[in-house]
C-alpha cells in the first residue's frame, strides 16, 4: 500500500510538471467531472488496515481520482466505455478448486471448448493469467470460483443441467469451508459464470427453470450469464449479461473484402419448427420463428431456410439485415455473428436483455421487433429510413463493438473478458450490507429441491 501511495504522489508531481504540455489530461478529467459521480472522502470504504485507498488531488474546480477504485462509468456512450481498461480498477482472487470441478470435466469432453457455452472455461483461463488476478485474497475485490457446470454433454453435444446444481452446491460448500471469504459476505463479492440456457436456474426447459428459480445459494452472488430477459425469475438484478461464445478464429477465417456489395435484404438460417420436441409448433420460440416462416417463405426479399450452407458466414456479410429470433431461450449466437459481420441484427424476442447493455447502445445498432409484429416484418424493415440504416451500419463497423463480442485467445484489449471485468469494476465498491456482521446468516443451506441436496 505504501508503494502505491508513493506512486500516486509521483504521478501527481508529474502532472503538475507537465501541466502546460499535457492539457489533454485535464480535458479528459473535465469530461469525467460532468458525467462521473463525485465522491467524498467520507464515503470511501475503509480497507482492513484502516487506510483510505484513494486520495484526492484538487486542481481548480475539478476533482481528479489518481488512484484506481472505479469511477462510475457513463452509461450509453459506446466509444469510451467499451475502451475502459479494468486493470488497476479491481482485483480478482481465483479459488483453487480440485480438478474434478474443472480440468477433469474438460478432459472427459473437450467439445466444451468449442460449443457456445465455452465462455466459462475461457474466463477461467483468462483470469489465471490476467493482471487483475491477485494471489492475496485479503486485497481482492471479487472472488471467482472455477466450476464448469455446462460441460456434461450428451452424445449430440447439448449440455445436461441435471447435475449442475449439485456441482455448484458442492463447490460452494468447499469454498465456504476452506476459506473465510464466502462466509464473510455469503457470496456478495463472489461471481460465477453460468452460461447455460436459463443461467443459474439450471434447466433447459423454461417452465421447469422458472419453477426451480435461481439456485438459492447464489442469490447474493453476481452472476455472469448469457440469459437475459426482463422481469424473469432467472435474471437477477445486478447480473452481467454476456454474449455466447463464438469461435473468433473461425469467423476471422471467413471474412470477405468489405467492398463486396450487400445484395441480400434479410438473411436467416436455422430451425423454424423444432420437430423433435415441439412438432405442432407454438412452443418453440413462442411461435415467432414459425410465424416468420409461414409469412415470408415465398417472399423474395427474405433469404430464409433451414439449410446449413458452407458459406454461412460469407452470406451474412452480404446481407443487410440478419434475423436473430428467440429459440428455446431468447439469446442466440446469431447476435454475435451479426455484429462481427456488419449485418444489422433484427432482434425478435420480447423483453430480452442484450449483452453488455450498459456499454453497447443496442437500440442504435439493431432493430427490435415485437413478437406480435412479426407478420408485418417486411413493412417494418422497409419503412426504416435509409439514413438510419446507413448510420447503423457505420456504428456496426466500429471495431471496438466487434471486439467486445468476442472471446479471443489470448485476450485482447476491449474484448468480452475486459467488458466483464469492466462490469464488475462498475459495481465496486461493495455496499455496506454486503459484509455480514459476525454471526449473521442469510442463506438457508437446505433450501431447494431435495435432489439438489445430494452430494456431488
Amino acid at each position, binding site marked *: 500500500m505504501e508503494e502505491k501511495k508513493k506512486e500516486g504522489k509521483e504521478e501527481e508531481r508529474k502532472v503538475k510538471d507537465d501541466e502546460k504540455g499535457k492539457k489533454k489530461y485535464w480535458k479528459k478529467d473535465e469530461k469525467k467531472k460532468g458525467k462521473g459521480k463525485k465522491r467524498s472522502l467520507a464515503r470511501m470504504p475503509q480497507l482492513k488496515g484502516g487506510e483510505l485507498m484513494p486520495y484526492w488531488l484538487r486542481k481548480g474546480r475539478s476533482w481528479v481520482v489518481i488512484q484506481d477504485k472505479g469511477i462510475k462509468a457513463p452509461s450509453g456512450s459506446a466509444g469510451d466505455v467499451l475502451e475502459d481498461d479494468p486493470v488497476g480498477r479491481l482485483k480478482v482472487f481465483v479459488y483453487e478448486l480440485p480438478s474434478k470441478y474443472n480440468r477433469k470435466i474438460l478432459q472427459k469432453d473437450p467439445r466444451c471448448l468449442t460449443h457456445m457455452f465455452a465462455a466459462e472455461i475461457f474466463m477461467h483461463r483468462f483470469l489465471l493469467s490476467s493482471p487483475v488476478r491477485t494471489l492475496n485474497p485479503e486485497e481482492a475485490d471479487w472472488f471467482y470460483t472455477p466450476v464448469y457446470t455446462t460441460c456434461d454433454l450428451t452424445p*449430440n453435444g447439448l449440455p445436461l443441467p441435471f447435475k449442475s446444481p449439485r456441482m455448484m452446491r458442492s463447490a460452494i460448500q468447499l469454498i465456504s469451508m476452506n476459506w473465510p471469504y464466502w462466509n464473510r459476505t455469503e457470496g456478495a463479492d463472489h461471481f460465477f459464470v453460468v452460461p447455460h*440456457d436459463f443461467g443459474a436456474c439450471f*434447466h*433447459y*426447459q423454461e*417452465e421447469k427453470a*422458472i*419453477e426451480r*428459480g435461481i439456485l438459492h445459494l447464489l442469490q447474493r452472488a453476481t452472476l455472469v450469464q448469457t440469459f437475459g*430477459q*426482463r*422481469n*424473469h*425469475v432467472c435474471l437477477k438484478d445486478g447480473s452481467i449479461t454476456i454474449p455466447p461464445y463464438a469461435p473468433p478464429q473461425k469467423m476471422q477465417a471467413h471474412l470477405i*473484402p*468489405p*467492398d463486396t*456489395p*450487400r*445484395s441480400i*435484404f434479410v438473411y436467416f438460417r436455422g430451425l423454424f*419448427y423444432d*420437430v*423433435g*420436441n*415441439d*412438432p*405442432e*409448433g*407454438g*412452443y418453440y420460440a*413462442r*411461435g415467432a420463428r*414459425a*410465424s416468420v416462416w*409461414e*409469412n*415470408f417463405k*415465398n*417472399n*423474395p*426479399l427474405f433469404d430464409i431456410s433451414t439449410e446449413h450452407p*458452407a458459406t454461412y458466414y460469407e452470406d451474412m456479410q452480404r446481407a*443487410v439485415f440478419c434475423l436473430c429470433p428467440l*429459440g*428455446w*431461450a431468447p439469446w442466440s449466437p446469431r447476435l454475435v455473428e451479426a455484429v462481427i459481420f456488419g449485418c444489422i441484427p433484427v432482434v425478435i424476442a*420480447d*423483453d430480452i436483455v442484450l449483452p453488455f447493455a450498459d456499454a453497447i447502445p443496442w437500440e442504435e445498432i439493431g432493430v427490435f421487433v415485437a413478437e406480435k409484429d*412479426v*407478420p408485418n416484418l*417486411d*413493412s417494418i*424493415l*422497409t*419503412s426504416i429510413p*435509409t439514413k438510419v*440504416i*446507413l448510420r447503423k*451500419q457505420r456504428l456496426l463497423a466500429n471495431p471496438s463493438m466487434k471486439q467486445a463480442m468476442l472471446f479471443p485467445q489470448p485476450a485482447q484489449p476491449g474484448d468480452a473478458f475486459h467488458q466483464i471485468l469492466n462490469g464488475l469494476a462498475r459495481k465496486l465498491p461493495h455496499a455496506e450490507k454486503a459484509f455480514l456482521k459476525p454471526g449473521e446468516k442469510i442463506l438457508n443451506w437446505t433450501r431447494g429441491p431435495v435432489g439438489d441436496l445430494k452430494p456431488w
Partner: protein
Amino acid sequence: MAAYRSSPALSDGGGADGMGKSQASCFWLLLHGLCCLISLVLGFRFSRLVFFLLFSTTTLYTSAPVLRATTTTTTTTTTTTRTETLTLSLPNHPPLPPPAVHSVPNRTRSRVVVGRHGIRIRPWPHPNPTEVMRAHHIIDQVQREQRLQYGVKAPRPLIVVTPTYVRTFQALHLTGLLHSLLLVPYRLTWIVVEAGGVTNETAAILARSQLNFLHIPFPEKMPTQWAERHKMEARMRLHALRAVRERLLDGIVVFADDSNIHSMEFFDEVQKVKWMGAVSVGILAHSGNSEPTPDRQFREEDKENFPVPIQGPACNSSGQLVGWHTFNSLPYREKSATFVGEAATVLPRKLEWAGFVLNSKLLWKEADKKPNWVRDLDAVGKYGEELEDPLALLKDESFVEPLGNCGKKALLWWLRVEARSDSKFPPGSNSLTYLIVEITGRLDLIFTIAYFGILGDPFYLSELSIKLS
C-alpha cells in the same frame, strides 16, 4: 440451446378450463395412460391433438371466420410418426388458447408468458410491391455507401468494346449487354464495331440506350463458320482499339462480347487495374442438346467440384501470376459446332479476349509512364497476322495483373448461343421474347430482358425454343 427432452410436456390448457381441478387431473391422467397404451400397441407416438380436434370440431367450424385451422401431416423418416400440426392463423388477435402460466409466489412475473402460443399468419402473406421497390432502393443505397467507403476512390471511365453483327439473336444479346451497362455506376463509352457496315437495326437498338456510344463500321461481312468468326472478331476488336488510339480516349478498356454475362462486381474489380489485368471467365459451353442440367448455384468455393471450366490467371501462393488456366477442348472434340447456328457445343478459344482489361494509355502513341513491355499498336496486325488473344499485344506476359482475388472469383461468364441462320425474329415487333435459355449465370440478365420485353406470340416462342434445342 436446449433441445433434449425425454417426454414432451404439453400444457393442454384448452380443455382444462371450467373443470374441477381434481377431476381434471384425474381425467388427464387417465387420458395420458390411454394414449401411452395406444402408442405401445401401435408402435408409434399417438398425438393427443386428435382428441383436441375431436372434442372441439364444433367450436372450430362455427368460428370459421376467425380461425383458419390447417392440418398438415408430416412423416419423419426415422420413425413412421404421423403428427398433425395445427396452425392457427390469427389476424391481429392475441394468442389463444390461454396458456398455462406458472405463477411462482413472491416473484415478479414476466409479461412474456410461457406456454403454447398461436402462430400468427397474416391473411395476405404476399409482398407488397411498393415495399419491394423500397427494399431494392435501400439495397442500392447501401451498396452505394459501400462503394464510397471501400471502393475505388477515383474511378476511371470505362471503354467497352463490343463486336457485333446483324443476326436473329442480336437484339437479345445486345439488349442484355445494354442493360448490364446501364447498371454500371461509372462513366462509360461503348464502342460497337459492326461487321458488314452500319445497319439500321443495330443503330435502332443503340439509340434506345442512354449510353454514350460509338458505332464503328467494319467493312467485311461476318463468316458463317465459328473458327473464322472468332478470328474476325479479333480483327474487329483491334479496329476498335485503333479508334481508341486515334481519339485518345482515356479509361479502362473492357472487352464485352454481346452474348456474355457480366457480374456487376466485374466493373468494380476492373477499376483496380494499373496497366493490364486478367480476370477469370467461366465458360458455359452450351451443349446444344437440352440435357436437363441440375440446378447449380455457382459459388466460388464450389468451382473446383463442378465441371464448369474457368479461364483465367493462375497464381502461386504469394499472389503472383505464374500461368494461365485455359480451356481444355478435348472432351468436346466430337461434338463441337463448326457453323454458326448449328445445334452443337460452341467452344471458346484458349484464352478469350473478354477476360482481359487494359488501360487505354497502353494504346496511345505517347503516354506518360507507358511501360516498355507493350508493343506499339501500329505494329500489331500489320502483316496480317492473327491475334489469338490480347497477350499478343505484349512483349512480356508476366506483367499482367491478376484481378478478382487472383483469379479465384469468376466475374463474367462466356456464352455463345446463336439461332439457325434462316430464322427470323418476329417482323415489325419491337419486342423480345422471353426465352428460357439454359444460362445458369446471372439471373438479373433474364430479369431485365423479361422486364423490358413483351411476351411474343406463342408460335414464335415455340419455334425459337425448338431451334435452340
